[in-house]
């Protein structure tokens, strides 16, 4: 019994590491989501982790000027509401007349001030200020008070970024780039992978070696030559077709490599059985290989989708910066420069950007893990 409870050190560190990694990824995401839903004034004054608690804020306001005083029971009296003329609402918890001590008296209490004057401020902001003598001067007395602001969430930030900051349009641009740039390489790579795994081809081993070699070629190396070719052709430069082809080219080596190792691991008997059953290569591919390779296809689709969605470099190089072509990452980058201080804009934009990867990942994650094991476990 005791032995079962005892944690081995290696397991302990494994769990600790997993916990740290989970925290390192989920905390910022949660912070981003919470911040993007908060009121823009609140973002500026308090951290996202206080979003669910009531925050206290020191404020000040002026009472009505002495001109508005009325005589009552031999006293001069000024009454009104401290929130008058502002869009504030909130609960006043304490008030005071000196800036050094805004919480001198609690709300609802009557403060005895000098010269026999007294001030009562209620929690809803209404106040009564009385004096045995007439008030003089032409400006109202200042009152300092502490308000407690209840938690407040809003979708205004999202409305702003989607419709007036251009994030909505960029979202569509990003989808326009990403979806074809994911589907085209899968189509090509699946055919190539089957051919390289099961068909008798001259120099098959050499072709596979070249593809594996291409895996390590940095993308940056081919940017300039590719751009020159695009400019020479004319019809590819700064077009969606051009960027689809570019992403397809950059994604293909990995796609072929991943799919080939998975497809090569499918049982040989199945393919031979289909041959005996009279299926040609195309039929074997469509009816046997494709359905059985779905986990690997899905896993590559996630990889490619996330990579293209998050890509900035290729988009900057091969796509224009006009409103109808700027992708989300590019727009985000532009916003960082122009609206760097507006956290509500930046957090909402950032969250819009990560929504799609999150959805893709969570809906396909079981294939993701299976695909990572592709080739390492027989029969996957």
């Amino acid at each position, binding site marked *: 019994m005791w032995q079962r409870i005892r944690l081995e050190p290696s397991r302990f560190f494994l769990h600790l590491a997993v916990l740290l990694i989970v925290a390192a990824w989920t905390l910022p995401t949660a912070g981003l989501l919470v911040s993007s839903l908060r009121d823009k004034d609140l973002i500026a004054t308090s951290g996202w982790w206080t979003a669910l608690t009531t925050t206290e804020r020191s404020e000040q306001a002026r009472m009505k000027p002495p001109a508005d005083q009325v005589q009552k029971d031999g006293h001069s009296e000024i009454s009104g509401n401290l929130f008058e003329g502002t869009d504030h609402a909130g609960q006043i918890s304490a008030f005071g007349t000196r800036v050094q001590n805004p919480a001198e008296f609690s709300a609802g209490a009557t403060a005895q001030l000098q010269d026999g004057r007294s001030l009562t401020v209620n929690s809803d902001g209404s106040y009564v200020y009385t004096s045995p003598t007439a008030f003089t001067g032409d400006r109202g007395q200042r009152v300092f008070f502490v308000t407690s602001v209840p938690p407040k969430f809003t979708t205004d930030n999202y409305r702003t970024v989607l419709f007036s900051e251009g994030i909505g349009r960029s979202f569509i641009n990003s989808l326009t780039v990403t979806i074809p740039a994911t589907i085209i390489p899968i189509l090509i790579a699946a055919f190539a992978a089957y051919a390289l795994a099961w068909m008798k081809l001259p120099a098959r081993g050499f072709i596979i070696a070249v593809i594996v070699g291409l895996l390590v070629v940095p993308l940056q190396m081919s940017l300039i030559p590719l751009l020159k070719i695009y400019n020479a052709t004319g019809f590819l430069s700064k077009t969606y077709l051009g960027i689809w082809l570019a992403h397809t080219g950059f994604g293909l080596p990995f796609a072929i490599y991943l799919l080939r190792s998975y497809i090569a691991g499918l*049982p040989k*008997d199945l393919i*031979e059985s289909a041959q*005996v*059953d*009279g299926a040609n290569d195309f039929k074997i591919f469509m009816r*046997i290989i494709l359905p*059985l390779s779905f986990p690997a296809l899905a896993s590559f689709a996630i990889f490619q989708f996330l990579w293209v969605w998050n890509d900035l470099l290729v988009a900057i190089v091969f796509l224009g910066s006009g409103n109808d072509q700027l992708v989300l990452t590019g727009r985000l980058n532009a916003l960082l420069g122009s609206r760097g201080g507006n956290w509500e804009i930046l957090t909402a934009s950032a969250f819009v950007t990560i929504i799609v990867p999150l959805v893709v990942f969570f809906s396909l994650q079981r294939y993701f893990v299976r695909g990572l094991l592709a080739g390492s476990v027989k029969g996957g």
Partner: protein
Amino acid sequence: MANIKLSNLNKSYGAVHILKDVNLDIKSGEFIVFVGPSGCGKSTLLRSICGLEAISSGTLEIDGAVVNEVPPSKRGIAMVFQSYALYPHMSVYENISFALENQGLDRASIKQKVEKVAEMLQLTPYLTRLPKALSGGQRQRVAIGRAIVRGAKVFLFDEPLSNLDAALRVQTRMEIAKLKRAMPDTTMVYVTHDQVEAMTLADRIVVLQAGRVEQVGTPMELYEKPGNVFVAGFIGSPKMNFVTGDPAERAGCKTLGIRPEHLEVSASSLADGIPGVVEYTEILGSDSFVYVATDYGMITARENGRTAISKGQKVWLKPVSGYVHRFDGNGKRLDTP
């Protein structure tokens, strides 16, 4: 109706010579079993007949036509794989109908044929299931159904029972024998390493060793008249005893082969008997095996029922006359004079 003729068939992978000059004439409607130790090339031979392996030299004829270059699907054959090779993502119905679909048959006739086969193999209730929801025996039947539905003239079986447990193996073996009786015109070629399957199913057995055909014959021919030492040792269980030296010379040969069931074990001295000490005994109920250490090596004898002989006892062994096999210096059989 299809006879298969193999002439000087060779198969090599680079420098490795797998099949060496295989000559075989399989008559139409025959049940032929290839047996041999693992690595002897029996599966390669089957796959060559199927067309999954290219033939390096020699010819393969089916029904008189050379089919060396004909793809598997055009040879009029069907194959049952060791792993069954059922398509895991297709239902039983789709598995059986796949070949017909490839032939371009219309839906109505596919349905009719599949249902007929399913009924024959008692698979009708399972037609919509996926292979993973079937038991081992049912999967086996689907694999056979896939072969039957194509109306192939030749059935090839590649160790079809090796994935089943012992009880199911016996039952399925009988089902295959029944299938053969139901399809007397269909030629069947069956690969196994299990000699019980070979003895019970085969019309003729082909014993292979290291890519060569050692002997072709009916099960009883191989048992009664093994052509050489290898076949003699391979067929029969427990293995045949081989004795060299004095007893062999007295019989006028180099090696004397005696099956355990043809040995008389006596606790008292026998004329011309081989003396020895019982090393241990195995009592199986219906029979017992006695292992005797002699001057000529360990000799196994089989006794009916429970043996009275116990460990450590001194015994004399004598072959039952007329049941000895004589082999010359090259291991070839010498006919009894």
